[in-house]
């Protein structure tokens, strides 16, 4: 209890000058080649501000984890990166988010194209009420990525392989995707995202609805995918962040408190709040 009270206190102090905090992040710790860069991102839900001047870079072909207690804004930030927040009534995003140097919120940008380039995997496995094959084929079909049936089949099989699901489902590709187990469903969703071959994959607590064994499989998968994709993952579990990510960003009450190499964040954080959180004093 006292810890919580304390952290709230520090926060009160912080909120008076959030700029200082971000500026404190050492420059040299930033990843050299960033796929996505975010500068001074503010997000509002109606009158309520959910994110304050967040600045993060998502480095190419590696995994960045967003951690923090519930309601800290980490998911909100993630959903800014492919403009999923557009679908929420009354949500307003300010600031500068760039994908390969292109402003994501530029009115000239086509969200459809953006989302094809920045894929997303959700908290709860959400396969469509279609067959396994059709689930994976959905993205390529709508985007017109395959010119014929063979090409489409190839994409589906490759994506399922990459998601380490092919062996388990190869005999029942035309059965409904909803019939799979939770972990398999989530891998199906990852395969579905991969099928569009996005450059960046956003994962919003992909394991929170899964059992430990399924979680381990997904984590393994994320580690494999790192070779080819840029991944940003929101997670509740610090262990998961430590296991899968190269860099970690800690959010608290809408502020990006600290960002850096995962090892640094977990072993030698600069900020008192990060330290309290990673040592399990609150969260």
């Amino acid at each position, binding site marked *: 209890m006292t810890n919580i009270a304390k952290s709230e206190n520090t926060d009160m102090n912080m909120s008076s000058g959030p700029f200082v905090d971000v500026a404190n992040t050492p420059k040299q710790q930033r990843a050299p080649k960033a796929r996505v860069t975010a500068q001074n991102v503010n997000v509002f839900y109606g009158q309520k501000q959910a994110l304050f001047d967040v600045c993060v870079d998502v480095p190419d072909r590696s995994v960045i984890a967003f951690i923090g207690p519930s309601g800290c804004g980490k998911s909100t930030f993630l959903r800014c990166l*492919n403009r999923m927040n557009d679908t929420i009534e009354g949500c307003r995003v300010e600031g500068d988010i760039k994908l390969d140097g292109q402003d994501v919120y530029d009115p000239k940008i086509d969200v459809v194209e953006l989302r094809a380039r920045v*894929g*997303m995997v959700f908290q709860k496995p*959400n*396969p*469509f*009420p279609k067959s396994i094959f059709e689930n994976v084929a959905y*993205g390529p079909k709508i985007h017109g990525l395959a010119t014929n049936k063979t090409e489409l089949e190839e994409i589906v099989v490759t994506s399922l392989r990459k998601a380490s699901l092919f062996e388990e489902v190869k005999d029942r590709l035309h059965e409904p995707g909803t019939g799979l187990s939770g972990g398999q469903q989530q891998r199906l969703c990852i395969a*579905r995202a991969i099928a569009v071959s996005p450059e960046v994959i956003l994962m919003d607590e992909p394991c929170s609805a899964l059992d430990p064994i399924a979680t381990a499989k997904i984590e393994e998968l994320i580690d494999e995918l790192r070779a080819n994709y840029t991944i940003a993952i929101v997670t509740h579990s610090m262990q998961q962040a430590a296991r899968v990510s190269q860099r970690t960003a800690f959010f608290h009450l809408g502020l990006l408190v600290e960002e850096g190499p995962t090892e640094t964040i977990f072993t030698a954080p600069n900020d008192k709040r990060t330290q309290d959180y990673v040592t399990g004093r609150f969260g």
Partner: protein
Amino acid sequence: MNSWMVALLLLAVLSLAYQQGWSLSRRLATPEGRLHSRPAYHGSLVAIWTIAPALVIFGLWALFGTSASRAFILANLPAEIVDTGGAALQSAIQRVRAIASGFGVAGEVQPYEAAAGEALRRFQLIASATVLAAAAAFAGVSLYFARRRIATRLRARNEVERLVRYLLLACSGVAILTTLGIVLSLVFEAARFFTFVSPIDFFFGTVWNPRFSTTGAGSGQYGLLPLLWGTVMVAGIAMFVALPIGLMTAIYLSQYAKPRVRSIVKPMIEILAGIPTIVYGFFALVTVGPALSAFGASIGVDIRATSALTAGIVMGIMIIPFISSLSDDILRQVPRAMIDGSIGLGATQSETIKRVVLPAALPGIVGAFLLAVSRAIGETMIVVLAAGNSPFLRANPGEPISTVTVTIVNQLTGDQDFASPQSLVAFALGLTLFVMTLFLNMAALYIVRRFREQYE
């Protein structure tokens, strides 16, 4: 007996009995022996037991009193008047009653009338006194016993609650009785109809011409098919109008519209659902029919003002809100996560709707569609006014037709000779209609239920 007086008396007895139970149980309550139930429950229990027998007696008298007094009058009238029967007997009974009530009759009073009236007066006096006395006696006896049962350990509350529960159960039995009543009356009367006309001629006949009941029984032709065809055609046209408009409305309101727009537009469309069907019928007859006919003339097609097309289109308008609000409910039950999944892959909103939302909601929408069809084939007033009432097998929707419901109305209104096949056929038609809608409803409810369970 004045029924107001009786009601007042019963009320007085009721409160007296309640008061008795209440005060008696209260006196029993001592620090050592605590009452099981609060005095109010003792009071209620005593009141219920006291009033119930009296109510039964009054109920019996209300049911059989009139026929008893009628029998008494008949017994007191001269045999030759009783034998004439008919209107003369009716008026004689009326006169005797008027004399007995002291109001008197105009004109000469026959001695036998006076005697019968006097006897009836005495009979009524004695009868009502007896009923009153019997009710009072039963009430008194049961009050006595109910009072004697009062004890600290009497579980008065449990008993009262059990009685209340029985009452509630009886109330929910009314719905069952209604269904039973519908099924029995339809089957029974339809069976009577089938003693005149063979079921094969009815179900497979292609000519509908029942004639009039005055021209002799069983002389008409009772082919169901022209009516069934008309019903199907009108319902088909209605669905053709209602489904696209209703479904697109639901899609727009549930997926695109901002909450503000939704909160204004949805009730406005639902106004259509609250308008009585007779109003739609009038609308069809006065506005839509002539407009269609003029439109047909302008493009060189012959459309009659009252036709399957007129009735179908207006019925479609009536069904729009039905489809749109059912589909809206169902579309909103498609999980947000599924929609997000599609949007997250870069699908446009319409792609998401067409490829994810609608397939997911399909069973529910099929259910809504079936319910709407069931409503369309059971709809009466629009077709009565606007379909033209012409029971022939015709393929052209611009021609007048007739439907099952229209024919039920035609056969049962006006001349009410219940025993003729001309009237009874309405029940055979009603049975057909009932079975058709029953199947549609059962299927629809089953599908919708399954759909709901899937996403809950």
